[in-house]
């Protein structure tokens, strides 16, 4: 029995301190996933808090069949999906046929940091923009694989879908990112490099 399993057991029995310790250990992971899914720091901060409130509420149902981290990932993805549904005004979701060949205006830079060079900020904005063009499912699968290092099988378990579905979402995500970033690669002369 690991230390984490003991904490989970205590938290399930109503031990608030044990739950706080679990929060302490997982908060950065949850924040980062929320940020990767939303691309917005404020939303990610709010959402990560909601995730832990939801976890507290449901921890009685957590049977330990999956890992604590995987369980939190699932709650976070679901929370982000709900958030997206209620805040569609921020959405730039991709519409396959209509927008496939349409170039949208480059968004006003939001992901700027004063300590980065102008070129680095451009790259960051373009990457975020490309991510924003993915559907929610594609983005979820992509960030879990690429930025959180979950295997395809783990993603399937986390999202409760077939592994084949994960692969097809990821394939489509990569094709779309490639399409978005080919513009960027041309602009920054990266095509000659590859």
């Amino acid at each position, binding site marked *: 029995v690991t230390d984490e399993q003991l904490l989970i057991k205590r938290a*399930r029995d*109503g031990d608030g301190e044990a739950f706080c310790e679990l929060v*302490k250990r997982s908060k950065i992971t949850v924040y980062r996933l929320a940020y990767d899914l939303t691309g917005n720091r404020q939303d990610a901060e709010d959402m990560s808090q909601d995730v832990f409130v*939801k976890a507290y509420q449901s921890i009685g149902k957590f049977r330990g069949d999956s890992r604590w981290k995987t369980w939190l990932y699932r709650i976070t993805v679901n929370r982000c999906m709900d958030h997206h549904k209620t805040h569609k005004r921020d959405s730039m979701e991709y519409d396959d046929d209509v927008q496939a060949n349409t170039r949208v205006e480059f968004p006003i830079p939001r992901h700027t940091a004063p300590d980065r060079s102008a070129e680095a900020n451009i790259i960051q904005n373009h*990457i975020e923009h490309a991510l924003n063009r993915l559907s929610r499912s594609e983005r979820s699968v992509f960030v879990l694989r690429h930025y959180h290092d979950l295997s*395809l099988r783990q993603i399937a378990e986390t999202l409760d879908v077939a592994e084949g579905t994960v692969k097809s979402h990821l394939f489509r995500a*990569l094709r779309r990112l490639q399409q978005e970033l080919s513009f960027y690669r041309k602009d920054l002369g990266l095509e000659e490099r590859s």
Partner: protein
Amino acid sequence: MTCQQCRDRIIAALYNELSGDEKIRFESHLGTCKECSRMYAEMDETLRIMDKRERVEPEDTSWSGYEDRIMEKIRERELPAPGKEREKFAFRGAWVPSWAYGIAALLLITIGIFLGRSLFVNQVTAVNPEKGQLTSSVPVTSDTINAAVLPYLERSRNVLLGIINTDETTYSQPVFEQQQRVSRQLIQQGAVIRAALKKPDQQQVRQLVQDLEVILLQLANIEVKPGVPVVELVRKGVDRNSILLKINLEEMKVKSDGTPSTKKKTKYRS
């Protein structure tokens, strides 16, 4: 390996998830197929670009007191401690399928309607026509019931509009609880009014009161907790029965028959 088989494995290959044997066959195919090889190289390049992404981390101060804020949120929402909740619902084992809870909820609502109709109709003796409220001093007549219909409809409409015109994310739990209390009062009044509407030409308004009763009962029984789309649930019930339209039509009809008029119409934000 065919091109299709190669493309089916391209994601696993990019993330180094192919087994040894598959990896050899995959690489062998890439060596002979320019198209697949190009696709693989482009996707790989895309991933390298995505590697350049940097997250914006929260300010250090954001983490200060973070756990306390979570616990404060939990207290605000009055969530029971996990252990206590499990004792309270100890029967909720894995063997109970989720649909069983839905059926149980439906049964409870049906029993509630049945009890409401049986009990309140017999207990209440009269209606105050000015306020549409129940009193014990005035005998029930068709006139007093008719006079109570308009205030009852207006009050019901105000409660429903108050909820469905609220944004799901910003509605206030205390206000909603107040609306649930008013709904319970209206359920009682509706039962009396409906029981007194016996004439054939009152069938339409009786049906409307009955439809309202079901929605108000559902509203009164909604358990407010995070994740429950309260506004959406009420809105669906209202939309499904076109309740607001029926209320407006009934008001017009009652007014044209010479009964006292209501004060105002309220817009329904769809």
